[in-house]
């Protein structure tokens, strides 16, 4: 068994409103950072998965994202292997 590492990046779908991003942008502008045009939030998850091979591991991570980690109605995700 080997430990494989992945970084999952989860972003909100385009077009959905993002109150947190909008509020943070306003806070930055109030602090004088007037050059900030947009702020949007996302999440990353660094996962370590034990597996016999990379292919199985990656498939597992994809299943995890689809099943639990990302909310398909509101979020898109990408998976990236980390060495």
């Amino acid at each position, binding site marked *: 068994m080997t430990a494989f590492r992945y970084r999952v990046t989860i972003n909100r779908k385009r077009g959905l409103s993002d*109150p947190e991003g909008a509020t943070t942008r306003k806070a930055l502008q109030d602090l004088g950072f007037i050059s900030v045009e947009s702020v949007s939030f996302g999440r990353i998850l660094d996962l370590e998965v034990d597996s016999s091979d990379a292919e199985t591991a990656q498939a597992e991570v994809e299943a995890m994202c689809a099943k639990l980690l990302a*909310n398909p109605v509101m979020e898109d995700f990408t998976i990236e292997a980390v060495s």
Partner: protein
Amino acid sequence: MTAKDQAPPHIQLGMTDEEYEHVIEILGREPMAAELAMYSVMWSEHCSYKSSRAHLGAFSADQPWVVVGPGENAGVVDLGDGWLAALRIESHNHPSYVEPYQGAATGVGGILRDVFTMGARPIAVWDPLRFGPLDEPRNRYLLEGVVSGIAGYGNAVGVPTLGGEIEFADRFSQNPLVNVMALGILQRDQLVLSAASEVGSLAILLGNATGRDGIGGASILASASFEEGDEEKRPNVQVGDPFEEKKLIEACLELYDRGLVEAIQDLGAAGISCATSETAGNGGRGMEVDLDRVHLREPDMTAGEILMSESQERMLAIVRPEDEAEVLALAKRWEIEASTIGTVTEGPQLVVHHRDELVADVPAASLADDAPVYHRPFERPGDLDEIWAREPEVPPDVDAAATLRLLLDDPAIGDRSWIWTQYDHMLFLNTVVGPGHDGSLLRIKETDKGLAVSTDGDALRTYLDARRGAARIVFESALNVAVTGARPYALVDNLNFGNPEVPEVMWQFVEAVEGMAWACGELDVPVVGGNVSFYNQTDGVDIYPAPVVGMLGFCEPMPERPPRLDRAEPGMSIYVLGPETVGDFAASAYDRIVNGELRGRPADVDGDAARHVVAAAATLAHTTPVLHDISSGGLAVALAEIAIASRCGLTVDTMPGPELFDETPLRFVAVTHDDELDTNEPHRRIGTMGGDVLDFGDAGRIDLAEATELFRNALPRRLH
């Protein structure tokens, strides 16, 4: 491409040919695109009540203390000394199935707006919920998502959630029900309505920027059944922003305080088109609207999108021109955006421009008033007689301990604190009796007035007999508020049903409405508002009919020490009050859980007896430490709940085993010191508090510790 995509636009928007002809008749021409969108949404089931309207006249709001009855955003009742209470209930069923967190969250946001639109400060929320069985992962996901959505929004917006209700049944798997009720209080001079009557007044849009949220969302999601593979509906998720709503509440309350608004309307389904046409139409006026002045989140939106957007946390205030500057300044101080988008005109037209083009020119009142009314056919379900003929069975020597083990472990009977400890239920320091009791009781500070609320539903019993089931919900909620010391004062209802085009569903609806209206009449309780949610159907399966009520109780003075489940002490006597049991096991917890059946016909209620029992309970609440109504699971469960909350065992006289689990309505338990039960109502002393066992004599005994463990874990153990 599906056949639907090639259909004419009005069909794609869910309109019938007849409805479309009617629009042409009103306008004297073919509608323009934005106009068609407006009619299609305003005439949808969700907005127009076209299938239910013909029947809702059965409800009466005819009591002297009703200030505002159905029709406005919320019902309003008089509490004396200048105080009013505003209440409303809403469903967010389909949005919560699509995205449980946001669906529930925006449901809370919407119901709060209905209440503060009236000029009231929202002071509490309740959440009646229905899901499929928890052994399916998807149902667990929905429950957890919905509860955290209500918590996430309600807590952050700063309105406590004081209770609710929960039921589980297979037919809610594909179609959970998420209802929310809100209560607000106000001073009489702060009451605001939604009619813009002064020509020249300005329409100011307050709050969130308008984006492409849920265009046609509420109406599409709430007016159509789900089919397999209905993914296109998914982008219609609306995202709630409790922070924006909190600012909006404070800003609006200050606007009312300063007398700056003539009328106000929240933006819900059909967004700007609904709010502008309703304010103008209600005042018998028209309005000129300029969509270029709407503050947008996405700059390139079309006129139709702007008009129909269901972006959350927006209000439309009607303001005299001389007050415009002050209103805008006040909005700025509360850090919300505001834009003047229209002017009230002589009428009757609602005239909308976008980028110098006329996009709509329709009689304002026609969108609401000319909506079709359908008298849909209804038919008694053919299998009902057969269902009634099958009688539930309970052996005469039922083992009380074994049965209680099963019942206390049921997620709809066991402790629901897993839900309500996630909700702020203490904010404002008004909560005198909080969640975990029959009804919640709030004080109104600086007065001796108290408000009690209970939300109740009973889909399984209503399925067996829609008329009796719905009536019994009303009586149960009346007793629930009575045991806190309040008398039933006003009711709001949420009628969750399947597809109204199915005659059997329509029959359930009509029966339920009549049963509910009768019960309210027997108790002199006015129905001050409600909501109808049809099309709760997935893949051809209709939900169990699920009317839900929110009962407001009122007391003055408040009981000094209102009854609580945890106030029983060793040595106190246990009494049962109310009618004799009649062997009522149809849709009982016993038949459902022990036998796994749904059959038989629920018992009827005698209206006179009901009025009597409810009044007796409300009086006794002023002098009795513990009062608890007997509902799901019967006497045995009611006693167990008292024992568990009070951490004190009990012994009851031997009685026929089935009597312990009988669910004959309108009965309640009182626990107090001997000879201190101050009532003329017939009562029976059945036992004594004390020890660390629940002892049912010949029917069996169970350790309090074991009962407590089962009860506490019923919900959590299924979720983790």
